[in-house]
């Protein structure tokens, strides 16, 4: 090998790395540009609109059998609520948990767990699809959200239902919202039982939303308040949910 080749190789290598870095820098300048991102994020409204047109609003998510259950159902996001009040609720087996229903409703009210569990319930074995890409199958039993909303009497100005949660992640309170199509969907329940047992703390005890046609982050855990609103623009950072506010995950989590 002549001495000339190595420096030239090193030079070419350096050139390649430099060009690559420039191209990457240029790439990120576009792919992370806020106004570009705000434009492409409009695709979420397109997906939302298209699914509302193409998919029957009552169409059920697939249901499975006991044989399909995940041996271990992964718990992620918040798996505990670090407040003395919640620890007290665990000790009391959630006997004194209250679900507040307010906002644009004729009869703002609170439901105790006993009241919710005395109402007609629905049981379903469904697949939980995390936005990260994994899926787990579980059996859920809970009170149809439609029954709770009907009991409270929604104003006809209501467009969204907001779920306020007891848990915090990264110092922010978790919340989520859905439209009325998903809120009144027959499989949308506030689950208090999972795989035949009381809902475990890691999965959102005592109440978690199951909204089966949407991704996992829409399924709010530790639900303590339901609010009927015309717009979620004035709630937290205004994007309709914890992950939507924090990192611009799509509000319509149907894909």
């Amino acid at each position: 090998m002549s001495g000339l080749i190595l420096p030239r190789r090193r030079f070419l290598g350096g050139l390649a790395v430099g060009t690559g870095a420039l191209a990457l820098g240029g790439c990120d300048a576009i792919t992370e540009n806020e106004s570009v991102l705000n434009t492409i994020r409009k695709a979420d409204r397109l997906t939302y609109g298209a699914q509302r047109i193409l998919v029957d609003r009552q169409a059920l998510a697939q249901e499975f059998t006991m044989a399909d259950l995940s041996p271990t159902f992964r718990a992620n996001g918040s798996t505990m609520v670090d407040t003395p009040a919640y620890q007290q609720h665990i000790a009391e087996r959630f006997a004194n948990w209250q679900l507040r229903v307010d906002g644009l409703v004729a009869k703002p009210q609170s439901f105790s767990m006993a009241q919710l569990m005395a109402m007609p319930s629905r049981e379903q074995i469904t697949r939980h699809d995390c936005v990260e890409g994994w899926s787990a199958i579980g059996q859920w039993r809970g009170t149809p959200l439609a029954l709770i909303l009907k009991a409270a009497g929604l104003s006809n100005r209501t467009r969204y239902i907001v779920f306020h949660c007891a848990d915090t992640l990264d110092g922010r309170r978790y919340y989520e919202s859905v439209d009325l199509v998903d809120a009144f969907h027959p499989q949308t329940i506030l689950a208090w039982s999972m795989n035949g047992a009381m809902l475990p703390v890691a999965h959102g005890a005592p109440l978690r939303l199951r909204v089966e046609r949407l991704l996992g982050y829409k399924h709010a855990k530790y639900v303590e308040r339901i609010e009927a609103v015309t717009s979620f623009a004035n709630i937290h950072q205004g994007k309709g949910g914890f992950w939507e506010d924090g990192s611009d995950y799509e509000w319509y989590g149907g894909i």
Partner: protein
Amino acid sequence: MSDSEIHGDIAPPPPRADQLVKRHRLSTRAWHWTNALSLLILFMSGLMIFNAYPRLHWGDRGSIHDAAWLEIGGDASRGYLKIGTSEIDTTGVLGHWRNAEGEVRNRAFPHYVTIPSRFSLPVARNWHLAFAWVLSLALTFYMLRSLFNGHIRYDLHVRRDEWSPKHIWHDIKEHARLRFPTGEAALRYNILQKLSYIGVIFILVPLMIGTGLAMSPGMNAGLPWLVDLFGGRQSARSIHFLAAFALLGFFFVHMAMVLLAGPYNEVRSIITGWYRIPQAKEETAS
């Protein structure tokens, strides 16, 4: 269209070698570049989405608690790719690589092939879901356009004589010897080109869109047969991943062919439409 000189009902005078002819119509060229951009963005943002959960399963479900048929991972000292029971050391490339600042990262695909280059599932999804629309609408428009302007019938339809194993074998040998069609024959897609374009347009890209939609919980309610067709949501995700790499394979072969067939002439024809008919290097009796 302006290319009636190629496909007109009246037989045109046979094109001479070295003559400039209109090779690709505007709709084909516009679609080609829309696809090139969309597939690049979809592939790179897709690798980032994979990084959020770098394991693949078969069936309806699959999470960190279930066995995966493919997994990319790493720790402080090494990176690996596991397929079934075999394991490949991928330190430096997959599962263990250094970012632009020189810090070790244990994500599956490295920063220089993902959109964005830092780890961000939401930004990757923003790009992926927007350009999935671009790809799908462009494919729908192109298929309808090609059906009506005769592109499918004239250029992609495989004639009966082309299906003969002898003909296909002859074409494979010619390609292997890097002997590409010249003269008038260069204006028509050869059988291997036809089969690979048909494979991409009618199989791979629709498969990407189909398996993509099969991962949508909203579409699963609307079209439950679609996810069942692929054998469950996690199977759809695995097929989506495999088909993406099949498209990457097509891209490399496509680039190699462009380079070997004469990059200037080929690239000019897909940008401007104009193509210079290559001259035969030697006279061969076929």
